[in-house]
């Protein structure tokens, strides 16, 4: 209950800070909370908004599936062997901290404009953190667990399902949470440059028109959706027994 009160307090604080910023900066730079909410409500009533949102959701759904399934598979493969884990970790970390926007032209030249480029770009952002988290979790499983599996004569499938997976689940969920946010960012940035559809494109075209109300409304909509999704994943994260 106290946590809920804190959250309400936080939202009120953010809205107040936004309103004050609006008073200082004026309505050329940003719209007030009330005006943004009104504009967003109007946008939510248009078919065009939902077409763009559906396009983004489709690209994001594909990209996040590739990131999480691919990341876990790669992480397990690299983590099961100590040498491959130690060898690949610095490479993965270097790839993770690379500004991937610079590679965007490369993605476009390989995949062409449109859906596949967006999905590839989103997956590029999300795949690596999921891989890193899974790999580190597998590498840090206590040796006694492997010995237990051996003593009980479990086969590979049983070991994976009853020993390895439960042991690494918390880290994998944490990695998936990070992968989820980064994939969303990747897909949106992809849409900003190389798409004729999607919420990222909507922001980019509003930027060209100087339509600050639409930029704010879409950005706030995305933030709320992202925070809600993150809250669900956080809740799952905390609900896992460890």
């Amino acid at each position: 209950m106290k946590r809920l009160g804190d959250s309400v307090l936080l939202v009120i604080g953010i809205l107040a800070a936004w309103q004050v910023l609006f008073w200082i900066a004026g309505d050329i730079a940003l719209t007030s909370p009330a005006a943004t909410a009104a504009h967003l409500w109007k946008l939510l009533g248009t078919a065009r908004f939902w077409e763009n949102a559906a396009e983004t959701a489709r690209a994001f759904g594909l990209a996040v599936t590739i990131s999480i399934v691919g990341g876990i598979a790669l992480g397990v493969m690299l983590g099961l062997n100590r040498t491959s884990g130690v060898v690949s970790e610095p490479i993965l970390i270097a790839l993770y901290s690379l500004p991937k926007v610079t590679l965007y032209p490369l993605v476009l030249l390989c995949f062409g404009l449109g859906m596949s480029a967006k999905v590839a770009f989103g997956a590029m952002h999300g795949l690596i953190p999921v891989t890193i988290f899974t790999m580190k979790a597998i590498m840090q499983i206590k040796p006694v667990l492997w010995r237990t599996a051996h003593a009980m004569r479990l086969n590979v499938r049983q070991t994976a399902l009853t020993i390895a997976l439960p042991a690494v689940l918390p880290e994998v969920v944490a990695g998936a949470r990070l992968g989820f946010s980064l994939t969303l960012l990747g897909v949106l940035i992809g849409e900003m440059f190389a798409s004729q559809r999607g919420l990222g494109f909507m922001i980019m075209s509003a930027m060209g028109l100087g339509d600050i109300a639409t930029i704010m409304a879409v950005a706030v909509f995305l933030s709320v959706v992202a925070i809600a999704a993150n809250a669900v994943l956080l809740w799952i994260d905390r609900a896992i027994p460890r």
Partner: protein
Amino acid sequence: MNRRVFSREGWIRLGVIAAFVIAFEAFCRAGFIPRTVVLPPSDMAVSLWHILQTGEYNKDILSTLRNVAASAVLSVTFGFALGVILHALPRMRATLEPLLASYYAVPTFMFYPVFIVMFGVGSGAIIAIAVLLSVVAMIASTLTGLDRIPRVLRKTAAIYRMGTAKRAVLIDFPAAAPYLFTGIKLAFAYAFIGVIASEFILSGQGIGYAIAYAYNNFDNRNMYGLMLLVILLATAANTALDTIDRRMQSRMRRQ
């Protein structure tokens, strides 16, 4: 440093990277990947050498480095200060905790256009978005560092009858330093990503802008040269910071 790099794993790592580059080169040279899509790595290196030698992009490179440095310094300073303040106010911290936990879920870049309208196209908006992206990592690291100061050190400070200022300098700061350094490392990485990405989206100069410009003009040679420059810069800086970070962490574990 040398001992670490040339361990068995280090050699294998070097081999893996070399094999990847050679395979890439071979694929390009054999014509499996057309030159209009990707240049062979050797050509990228030649182009980068040319770029650095003629100095035609020096202004952009300097502008990017300046913005990254400014953003990183601002984030580290403000992040540290805010972290210390929040640590001292537990009630405030509890209220802000959900914000810190879900901050990186928000696609911050979507607010870049707002900053452009506010500050105009230029360093102001770029630094603002880069700071927004990196400051929270520093705040979180500062809070973790202050939380993890062993109680025994505080008791030691009490036994020596240290004042708050003296304790902060002699006990708290050194004890939290490894975590603070992790924060600096993250702040730098995020600042780099933030600056390059904002330059790419909309700006008048910088490496990100130069890459976007070259891309729009089908100037593959310069584009891949600059891309290689970004990859090398980011990897070198992050590897150096990461090495120092690991050393500090392992020293802490030995204590």
